[in-house]
Each structure stands twice: as structure tokens, then as C-alpha cells.
């Protein structure tokens, strides 16, 4: 698991508040919405928290990017991609 995937798992578990869901039991390829019941507001919270944690500029993530997200692994990949495009993150 990459550091960003670990951050996604940790934040997702916190937001979902599902009993017995732990980093080791979270399926990185599970469907965020159908399997884990993520709401659109929670998706926004998830992305905001992750951008804060990784010093990634949220405004670089488009609505189309968000619409394509299906799994925790997709989220991690998007954060990593957006982080590479964020000058502040590069400088840090």
C-alpha cells in the first residue's frame, strides 16, 4: 500500500464510520458508493481532507475527475496525479 493509499484508507474509514472496517479489511478496489455507501458530500469531505493532508490544491481536481472515481484506489491515484500538478506540493 502506498502512503497515499494508506491516507485514503484511514480517512475513508473515519468518514464512513462502519463497524469493523479497518485498513487491512478495506478493499482498495471496492466500490465507494455501492459497497461502502459513500455519499456525494462525504466524497467532497474525503477529497478535501486528503488534499489538506497531502498539500494538494483541490481546485486542480475537476468535476469530471470526481465523477470518474469509483474505488479507493482511484482516489489515491487522483490525489497523486493532482499532487504532481500542484506547485506548492512540489516546492514542499
Amino acid at each position, binding site marked *: 500500500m502506498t502512503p497515499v493509499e494508506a491516507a485514503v484508507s484511514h480517512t475513508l474509514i473515519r468518514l464512513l464510520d462502519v463497524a469493523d472496517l479497518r485498513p487491512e479489511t478495506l478493499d482498495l478496489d471496492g466500490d465507494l458508493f*455501492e459497497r461502502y455507501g459513500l455519499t456525494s458530500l462525504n466524497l467532497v469531505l474525503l477529497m478535501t481532507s486528503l488534499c489538506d493532508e497531502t498539500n494538494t490544491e*483541490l481546485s486542480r481536481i475537476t468535476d469530471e475527475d470526481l465523477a470518474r472515481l469509483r474505488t479507493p484506489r482511484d482516489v489515491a491515484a487522483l490525489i497523486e496525479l493532482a499532487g504532481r500538478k500542484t506547485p506548492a506540493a512540489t516546492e514542499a
Partner: protein
Amino acid sequence: MSGAPDIAAEAGPVEPEPVVACLANGRPSLTHSIAFHQPGGRLCLSLDELDRQARRVALHLTRLGVRPGDRIGILARNRLEWVLLDLAALKIKAVTAGFEAGKVETTPDLIDRYGLSLLFTDQQPGDRWRGDPRIQPITRLLADIEGIPDNPDLPPVTYDPDDVTTIKFTSGSTGQPKGLAARVGSIDGSLSAVQALFRHRPTDRLFVFLPLSLLQQRYWIYSALAFGHNVVVTTYEMAFHALRREEPTVVMGVPAFFEALRKDIESRMTGKGSGGSAQAARDRAALARTVLGSHIRYLWTGSAPASPGLLAFFESCGLPIFEGYGMNETCIVTKNTPAAHRTGSVGRPVPGKRVSLDKDGVIIVHSDQPVNSAYLFAAPGESERLFLPDGGVRTGDLGRIDADGYLYILGRVDDVVVLENGRNVLARPLEERLRTCPAVTDGVIVGAGCGALQAIVCASGGMADRGVIEQHIALMNRDAGRDERIGGLVIADEPFSIENGLLTSQYKPRRNAILARYGRAIAPTKGDES
């Protein structure tokens, strides 16, 4: 009429200020600002600079052939250009029609259906409209006004209370949205009433993230320009991000937004001690201030019912949250305010509004300055169902008025579930109790022509939570009257959302749509299988 008294504002009459005329002709504050968090980043300009740019856009619209009374459509997510077009339209007496981005497709049909002169959109050109000169990319607007001199003088315009500035669209439960033309008198009256009650002041910074296609969201920009305060505009996607950075004093949100914030704050509290201890309460309040910023004066909510738990949570964090009531057809009707607040109610009528209940307990609203007396676009009979001949609006909401004049919303007339035995059951209180189950993220109660009530819920853990939810329902049933017991449960295969058509744009569950999708799957809960 029932025996319940009519109630009117206790604050007394408020003479409406000519807000719309002020926006059209005035020169706003140099010292206050509007900030945008939008795709591409943050930008901030003084209200004076905003007004100067709006004047240039007004001239640009005129050059494109827009005349007083013409309609221009705006179909875009919240951004600077949205606000500029809206203000520019006011300056030349054009009428705006705001369409919710993500819900409506940019097509020539849209232009024809609503009689638009131009449509500004942030959607990519599609084959059906590429090259149509009536459709303008909103992202090109700032480049298009580059050649127009700064701060041009425009001929002054006058507004009569019966003039119309915009068309509001109401998301009905089914079919095409209804269109309602908003009178200037209603806009002036509502903004003046809110200002009299909340006294937004120069140090205030109001936070707006719901779509600007909703007129009431644009009100806060109008308020900033007319009364002199700051405002922050962002998109739904950037709302949580912007909150922490902008230090607003007032946050305008729907209950679902504040509920998500509450869950976020509570989840961050894990491991910080017992939820009931004084230290935990202080930690929770500090965390809330971190998430919402440290300058919050109050939180504003409405459009959908807020649960008692939600209101209590923010109150316990030292963040006053004021629930109110209104609908597109009435504008704001009642509001809890810093001076008159009763938790659980939606407050007392604002100045210029009167509330009564009809014989069925349905809330009727009369306004000194009504929004209008009929829809502009609606199926035959829709206007007559809502707008009464005496100028009142039959809201379709069931209410109760207490001895001090506070209004309580009991549910929608169509929230009344009729059982096989003909008994009527009010679903909303049961739905509120259902949602207190930790595993339930949303849910509705339906009748479905059955002998007992049925619950259709979204669960954070999906089917794995069935046992927990059944236990919760069993506890509810233990305390309930015979007709209020829940006899069937369906766990939805995906959360209710705006995208799948199971929530309205204001996050209210669409009961009929949910029933249509899941009604066949209704199964008895364990306690009722025998």
C-alpha cells in the same frame, strides 16, 4: 380555517428598501469584498470592482442585442462570471433564468422552451449546439469584455415592485421543473426583512456554496452590495476546503451539509475521551471552530428539515444555528433569529409575511409582496393548486403554531402515509427516529398500500447492517402505536443521491421515486415475520 391563529411578524413592519434598484444603479462599497473559490483557484475583488465589471458585462450584453425584458439563461457552476451576468442583467432590466448545472443539458430546445435570447453555459459544446450564436461559453465572458472601457456609465433604470428580474425553477417531484417569475417587490421585501432581523454588518463575511441558480443564494450577494458586508462564493465541491480558509461569520447551508460536518467533527473526536465529559465538549467545540473557522457568528439552515440532534450538536459547540422556512413560491416565510429562537420550530414570520393553517392543518402564507400569483411555466392546473385567489400560497406543508407564534413543520401533505386500514400516519417523525440509527445514513417511511409501514434505508455498511437496523426498528416499534410500527425493511443498493434521482436538488428524499424503485423489494422485518 382551523382554530389556530394567524401569525404575523412580531418585529413589526419593515419598509422594504429598494435593493434591486440599488444593485442596478448604485455604486457599492470600496471596502468590502467578494471572494470566489472556483475551478482554477481563488480570486477576490472589491464590491466596487465587481460592480465595474458588471457594468462592462451589461454593455457587452447590450451589444449582443439584449434589450429590457429579454431573457438570458445561465447554466453554470458558481463562478465570478455567473454573478457578473446576473448583476449586468439587473442593470439593463434583462431577466435571468438560472439553470442548475449538472441537472440540465445545454440544448437549443432549452432556449426555445424558455424563450431565451442568449444562454451562457460552462458545458462543453455538443454536436447539437456547436456554432449556435445564441449559446455563449461563460468562460469566454471576461475575454469578451476586455475591449470595453472600465466603469462605463449606463443609463439609470427604474424598477416597479411588479417588475420581474429572474425566473426561479422549482424542482417538482416529477416531470419538468416549474418556472416562476420573481417580482422585484418580493426581492426587496425579503432582503429588507432579513437585514432587519439579522443586521448583517460591515465585519460580516457570508459563505455561499449552494447553486447560484437558486435566487435565495444570490440574495447574499445582493445583501453584500446593498448593505455593505463581505461574501464568499464557492462551489459545492470546494465548500469544505474554502470554509477553513475564509473564516466566514455566517454559513448558509442545507441540513445535509451541516450533518456531513457534524459527522466529520465527531469522527475526528474518536479517542479524545468520553462524548459526555466537559473536556470532550470543549474539544468538540474547538474542533468545530477549526473546521468552520473561528469567526462564526451563526449558521443559517433551511430548505429541508434539520434533525433535533443536528441542531443540538452545533448549539453545544457554541455555534448558533437558525432554522427557517420558505419555498420558492413564498420566499422566506419564518426564521429563528438571534432575538427570537425556539429550537425545533422554524421561527416566527419575518416582516411582511403572515402564516395561517387551513382546516387540514396545511400552512397558508400571505405576503405583503408576493413572489408572484401564478407560475410562468407549469402544467395546466399547477398554479391553481398552489396559488389561492386571495393571494395566499397553499404550501402543502403541515404545520403547528405554538402560543408564542412559532411555527413547527410536521411534514408534507404527501408525507402522510395512508395504510390499508385507511389510517393516516405522519412519516417524518418516524423517519427522524430511523435516522438516529448509527448504521442508517438516510431513509424514508412509505405505506405502499400495505397493512404496515415500510422503511427504505441507505446503510453505511450495506446489507451487513441489516441486523443493527432491524434491532433499531424493533426498539422503535416497541414504543410506537399500532399504526406507527414499521413492518418491512429494504436496504437500498446505493445511497439516495441527486444523481440517481432519489434526492431533490436540496437533498430531500423523493419518496415516490424511492418507492417506485424499491417498493417491490419490501420484506418484513424480523419481528413481524410471524
